């Protein structure tokens, strides 16, 4: 598992450039452009199970969901940040991508430190020290558990 660490105010244009928003919609189209203007090596380096650490206001800007969809598709296990923009938070939950708000863990992380994530216990361990993060509200947990909002909606439609 690798950890990628970025700073504050990482906006949606850095995560997925606006110029592709109307030509790339599927996971396969999105993957090669993930974080293109922020970290040109990310798309080729990222592997399933990797974690992203970031500062405040991660995902601010546009409502585009390609970053959340793409990061989920390449298997990013979680994004741990000091804070997330509201629309990005919603979009990620709707994709089933786990976001963790935990400033202490972000500050504690130095390159090469060991990181362990326990989503059931709600803890993240960085360089041997554990930090708790709050559980999602029930409404969001139900969406995450179903594997994203579309699967959740399909289930609800079938039950109707």
């Amino acid at each position, binding site marked *: 598992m690798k950890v990628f660490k970025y700073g504050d*105010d990482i906006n949606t244009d850095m995560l997925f450039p606006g110029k592709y928003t109307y*030509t790339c*919609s599927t996971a396969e189209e999105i993957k090669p452009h993930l974080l293109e203007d922020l970290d040109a090596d990310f798309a080729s380096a990222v592997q399933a199970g990797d974690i992203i650490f970031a500062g405040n206001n991660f995902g601010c800007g546009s409502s585009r969901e390609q970053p959340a969809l793409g990061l989920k598709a390449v298997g990013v296990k979680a994004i741990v940040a000091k804070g*997330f923009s509201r629309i990005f938070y919603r*979009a990620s939950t709707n994709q089933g991508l786990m976001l963790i708000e935990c400033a202490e863990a972000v500050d504690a992380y130095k390159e090469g430190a060991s990181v362990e994530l326990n989503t059931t216990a709600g803890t993240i361990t960085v360089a041997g020290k554990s930090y708790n993060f709050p559980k999602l*509200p029930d409404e969001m947990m139900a969406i995450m558990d179903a594997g994203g909002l*579309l699967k959740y909606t399909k289930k609800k439609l079938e039950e109707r």
Partner: protein
Amino acid sequence: MGMTFAQKILAHKSGQDTVKVGQIVTIKPDYLLTHDNTAAIVGKIGDELDKYGVVRTDLNIIVLDHVIPAASEKNAAGHKKIRAFVKEHKIEHFFDIGEGICHQVVYEKGFARPGRIIVGSDSHTCSYGAVGTFSTGIDRTESAALILMGETWLKVPPTIKITLKGRLAKGVSAKDIILRIIGDISADGATYQAVEFHGDIHNLSMDDRFTIANMGIEMGAKIAVFPVDNTTKAFFDEYNIPFNADDVVWADADAEYIRELEYDLSTLEPVIAAPHTVDNVKPVNELEGIPLDQILLGTCTNGRLSDFEIAASIIKGKKIHPGTRMLILPASRHIMREAMKKGYIDALVEAGAVMLPPGCGPCLGAHQGAMAPGEKTLSTANRNFKGRMGCKDAETYLSSPATVAASALHGVITDPRKEII
């Protein structure tokens, strides 16, 4: 204890007497706005649409505006797919290319009204707070689920109260107010929060309020909302939009706020958001003289009639500096026609400006007005992120239409007060 605007409207729409901050409510929005991204949205739910159909034919407002006319075969295929969806599912509110930018269309056509809730798969959906609507951005997947189900959840946000006192000085615009606020409270200063504007709101025109509400998302806000007054009513009259005073929702006098800010408008000065974040706000005179390769007047933030009026009043009879190029982009067909009738467009085009169709154009960097590495644009848009205008090695500065117009004459960033007599 009284309730804020957000509490009141969310309580009402979820069928409760009161709601608390942090509570999650289920609501059925009045409308769902989508644009060129409708193709991708309906693409996610093809099977379900075949099986269940849309939940309401009057839920969607679809406006083709982002890449119009289509810049590539792929865009054209997207537009085609959207037109087919509209036809097949008898979508009632569809606006094809050339009508305008989605937010301006929603506003002009009377979808945004006091007491309504509108969600949209576009972050600047927060714009309709200008007329007392609760409106906020969502992602494409959620839009897809809404098309099928018609309902979603919202968390009741805490609210920041911003009181605007007095009047702006000459050469200072609504854009300068909102940039100043964002500079002060930062790009995430209002994340997960609502923003209510109070004070001498009667001193602000509808265009001013729309510019301010439009940029609420640039401080992270869920909504940015103004009270409804005679200016709002005059706007509804002008556009033949029915108005019912009973629909108006506003905060109680004893509502509880998490933060209160006050601005004396008479002390504000023209400002600019320098690259690459909207909260990197500096007084224009600190940046004067920076050479500009491109100037953009327009977008959903500042492409309205009064924006063209001020730009034309500064530029009329003069020439745009040969070292720069100016693009003009009215926010809607209606505005374009009005600006033509009033001679604003003619004045700008005669001075050397290039007119683009009413749509998003260069704002999102998908087509038109792309920049080359090393170039600088001064724009009236709402975002200056790295790469936003199509090139990560270019720079975007944001300002008011007056600043843009003054700068167009000199080819460098210029204080508009020098050109306004």
